[in-house]
């Protein structure tokens, strides 16, 4: 199994076992509870946006390694981004997840690119996406 193919790279296992940016905020400006009823994965995402930029972002969740690692890696990418940049990021990630062919992500997603292997497991793509759709809802103020 090639490295590219490997779903459970060390970095993913690491993120899932030691998630970054875990916790809750006192005064979140945006938040959303994402839930996948089919598999039970959950992510509670909170953001603090001021001056049009994401200043703080934390999450709490439970679920499989893919969903939790994806959330952890997402939070790393968000800090300091504008709302537009964040929205753009979501779009980029979603498109990439659905395209098994694309060698590399069109834009650097940092650690997130370790999720490349998920694209070969259609049933697991929804796990990787959960954090991102939760973010989408949070930004939309739902």
């Amino acid at each position, binding site marked *: *199994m090639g490295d590219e193919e490997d*779903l*459970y790279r*060390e970095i993913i*296992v*690491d993120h*899932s*076992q*030691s998630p970054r940016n875990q916790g809750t905020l006192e005064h979140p400006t945006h938040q959303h509870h994402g839930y996948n009823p*089919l*598999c*039970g994965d*959950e992510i509670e995402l909170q953001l603090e946006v001021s001056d049009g930029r994401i200043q703080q972002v934390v999450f709490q969740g*439970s*679920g*499989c*390694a*893919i969903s939790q690692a994806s959330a952890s890696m997402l939070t790393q990418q968000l800090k300091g981004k504008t709302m537009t940049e964040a929205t753009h990021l979501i779009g980029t990630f979603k498109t990439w997840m659905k395209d098994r062919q694309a060698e590399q992500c069109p834009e650097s997603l940092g650690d997130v690119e370790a999720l490349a292997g998920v694209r070969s*497991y259609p*049933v*697991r793509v929804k*796990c990787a996406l959960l954090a991102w759709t939760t973010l989408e809802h949070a930004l939309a103020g739902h």
Partner: protein
Amino acid sequence: MLDFPGLEGITYLDSAASSQTPNQVLARMEHYYQRDRANVHRGAYALSSRATDAYEEARQKVADFLGTDADQCVFTRGTTDALNLLARTLPGKKIALSVMEHHSNLVPWQQRPEAELIWIEISEDGRLDQASLEAALAQKPDIMTLTWVSNVLGTINPIQEIARRCREQGTLLVVDAAQGVPHLPTDVKELGCHFLVFSGHKMLGPTGIGVLWGERQQLEKLPPYQFGGSMVGLVTREKTTFADLPQRLEAGTPPIAEAIGLGAAIDFLRARGMAKVRQHEKELTGLALHELRKIPDLRIAGPQDPEKQGGVISFQVGKVHPHDVATILDRRNVCVRAGHHCCQPLMRRLTDMWTPGARAPIALVRASFYLYNQPEDVAQLVEGLQEARKVFSRG
């Protein structure tokens, strides 16, 4: 395994969700489609009469398989359909059911207007809690509805004994036999329940078919559930009289090919012998329990005793999430299920037992066996689980 082409190259351990289908069943359905293709009960020509005969012969096969008469066997679209039929038509308010029920034997009752649910708890080893069962009976419920075999724990519930108690006090006993009839020799008279339901797709049959069996006297009391062609007598603009059983409960064009396919599946099972099917699964379950117990950190739900359970084993592998376990197994073509198995209240209960205080309910990996599984499949499972542990001990 020439009979089961679907098994080529895979280790299929998800028969509790849906079984494989042997070629004999496909051939019998194809024969209907290619040689006897017509609607039933309606035509005035030989072709339609052949179709009707094939459909009714399938009903007779079901009846023989259960030790009952054909007019007591109603074809439904599956277990869920049959349970909805009962939940909609049986009278009564107080309904007792167990914590291990499948959503299909829970939500239809819960959503009944004015239903008053009485819950039967489970013990640490995943069996019906005796005290709780007594307490439920003491409330004299109108209906008690129980799974024969749990699709998560594997537990075989003592239906015969419970039926006796129910009869003594006039409680109607409904048995969800979705995991029972496919795996255990069944004699409805011996079981003693009032109603029993199951699906074809879990017993080598096609999708889209199930059976509602009922004691004749009870079945006759049921009002129609769906209305339409085939289930009527005289229809005027103002009113309708209804046909006799079993037609009265089978509205519209029935699942003809599916019933015929189920008949063929029963032929297959009878040729093998249900006692042998059970014995084979018992041995595999014993072997699997033995092997799984050797894996460190692996926690098994349920009785863990092949005498007390069907060929279903659910477990957790340390802290590795069940979906990740399933995916790692899938990469080796080992098919298991992971999740809540349509039993959320049971998962909640297990969570409270295993990790008291936890907010999120646990999920489980489930391996389930059928007559086509072999010891080799258990070995494949174990190897895959060992890999899962290895992957998640790197971090």
